[in-house]
């Protein structure tokens, strides 16, 4: 569905060259759900804008839905849906009018566009707002309208740039529910960007972690977490001596990444915490180590990002959020 080779884009701003995307090689199969996960400024939007014919790459090639973005952008446009990072619907327009315009733009008949607008408004819980002016909608309603606009023509490939940023939990759930229903019914391929870890974890079958314009990891969320971070076993022991012996016993386990002790607390990092924990507890008991508490925590994608870059995603995101503006260039 998407094949890119060496896709690169740099910008010149104030005499400096920013390499927003550096040599993206993608192969995304039809029907997959792929997340681009990375902090602000990582190059997610720039990647999507190249794949959706909005921005010519500096170098490299991209074939999207069977068409080359540079030589046949119109072929690409007929087949994809795009939800941008900004507001897709114009503030002065009426909700239903924007949906009908969108349908007409994709070649639907007037009646067809109107029917489609109605069913989308219902599906995204926007009924009753058809006659409202876009500017009077709440943030959540507006974002759901943007999603509806991207879905009007039931595209086979859907790009979503931070689809749920700024939405309340209920609106987020509604958005994903609808997007996934579409996928179930039509087999839509979905590529989305996010800096919400939970969102990538929950909905994507494949996560590409991006940082500074490069994909630094690419796998299913489960494998990323198991491979790069692993589970964490946290033991509370009775005293420091017990902690010391617990550390030794933990190190003797077949697959552990790291064991650390902090006072009476012992932390063990291992890819298979669920099977290792019972073994460790039996060994501790046999050795007479007094274990008071035992916890197993599963890793998050933030741990993955930390493992890869030495920074947490939350930190990197927080540092640049204030300057995240939408640029129409």
């Amino acid at each position, binding site marked *: 569905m998407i094949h890119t080779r060496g896709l690169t884009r740099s910008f010149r701003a104030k005499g400096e060259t920013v390499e927003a995307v550096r040599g993206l090689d993608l192969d995304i199969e039809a029907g997959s759900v792929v997340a681009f996960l990375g902090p602000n400024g990582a190059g997610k939007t720039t990647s999507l804008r190249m794949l*959706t*014919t*909005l*921005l*010519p790459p500096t170098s490299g090639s991209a074939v999207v839905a069977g068409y080359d*973005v*540079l030589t046949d*952008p*119109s072929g690409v*446009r*007929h087949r*994809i849906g*795009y939800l*941008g*990072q*900004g*507001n*897709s*619907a*114009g*503030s*002065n*327009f*009426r909700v239903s*009018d*924007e949906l009908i*315009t*969108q349908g*007409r*733009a*994709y*070649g639907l008949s007037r009646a067809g566009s109107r029917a489609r607008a109605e069913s989308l408004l219902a599906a995204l819980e926007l009924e009753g707002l058809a006659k409202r002016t876009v500017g009077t909608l709440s943030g959540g309603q507006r974002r759901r309208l*943007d999603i509806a*606009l991207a879905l009007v023509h039931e595209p086979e490939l859907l790009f979503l740039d931070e689809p749920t940023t700024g939405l309340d939990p209920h609106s987020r759930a509604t958005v994903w529910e609808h997007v996934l229903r579409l996928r179930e019914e039509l087999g839509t391929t979905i590529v989305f960007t996010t800096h919400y870890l939970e969102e990538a974890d929950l909905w994507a079958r494949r996560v590409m972690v991006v940082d500074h314009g490069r994909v630094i990891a690419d796998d299913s969320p489960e494998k990323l977490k198991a491979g790069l971070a692993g589970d964490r076993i946290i033991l509370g022991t009775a005293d420091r001596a017990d902690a010391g012996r617990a550390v030794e016993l933990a190190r003797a386990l077949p697959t552990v990444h790291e064991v650390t002790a902090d006072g009476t607390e012992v932390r063990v990092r291992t890819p298979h915490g669920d099977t290792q924990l019972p073994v460790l507890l039996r060994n501790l008991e046999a050795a007479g180590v007094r274990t008071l508490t035992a916890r197993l925590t599963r890793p998050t994608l933030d741990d993955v990002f930390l493992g890869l870059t030495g920074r947490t995603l939350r930190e990197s995101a927080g540092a640049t959020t204030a300057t995240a503006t*939408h*640029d*129409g*260039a």
Partner: protein
Amino acid sequence: MKVLNDTRTAFARELGPELRRPAGLLFTMLLPFLLLALFAPLLSGMSPVGGNTGTGSSWQWFAPGVLVLLALSATAGAGASLLNEMSSGAFERMLVTPLNRAAMLVGRALKEVVILLAQAVLILVLLLPTSFRFRPLGALAGLGLLTVFGIGIGALSFTLALHSRKQQTLFYGVQQMIFFPLLLLSGVLLPITQASAPTWLHVLSRINPAAYVVEAERALFDGRFAETSVLYGGLAATAVAVLGVVAGIRGMRNASV
């Protein structure tokens, strides 16, 4: 066929908000209104103005110019709406659809012209109680010329907006820098003749297409179809329209891959 359909789609989208808020068309008419109310009465007290004043009163001379001024002031700001949509994301959304790029430009420009014509008719209605003499054929031809000129100025304004996306102040700066000289050098307020103006100013007005359109409008509204000023005005308006539409379509095409 697709181009026509797409033009209709783009046009219908832009017209929607105007139809729901028809009073909005008064906003860009402030300058023409002020001129008609506070400036035109001064002229009637003066001796006939200008070299070629035609047959009628000072209203006959002044009103067609005001329509050209209207065309300038109403459509020159057209790009501002596009600029807003470029920074919000609505324009980007349209660019990802298969909508024809030329249609996106022409549809928008046509909407500007429909508003302009409605405004022009409103001004003509306001002129009914004055000594302005109405010649239906001449008025029709005059509005036709105004349409062509309006499309051109509107399209140029969109072009400017498309080139200002990285720096929005550029749009407003250039727009003001062009608008006022075009207006002052068009002879709308006072005639700019070889006798009345310094040579340099006269020369400048001779390279201003709006000046030719003003003269042509005066002749047309007066029913004098056979004058060379009509020919020159028609050519000037057409040139502006062709330039604007061609540059605008190029700008639209370059806005995406």
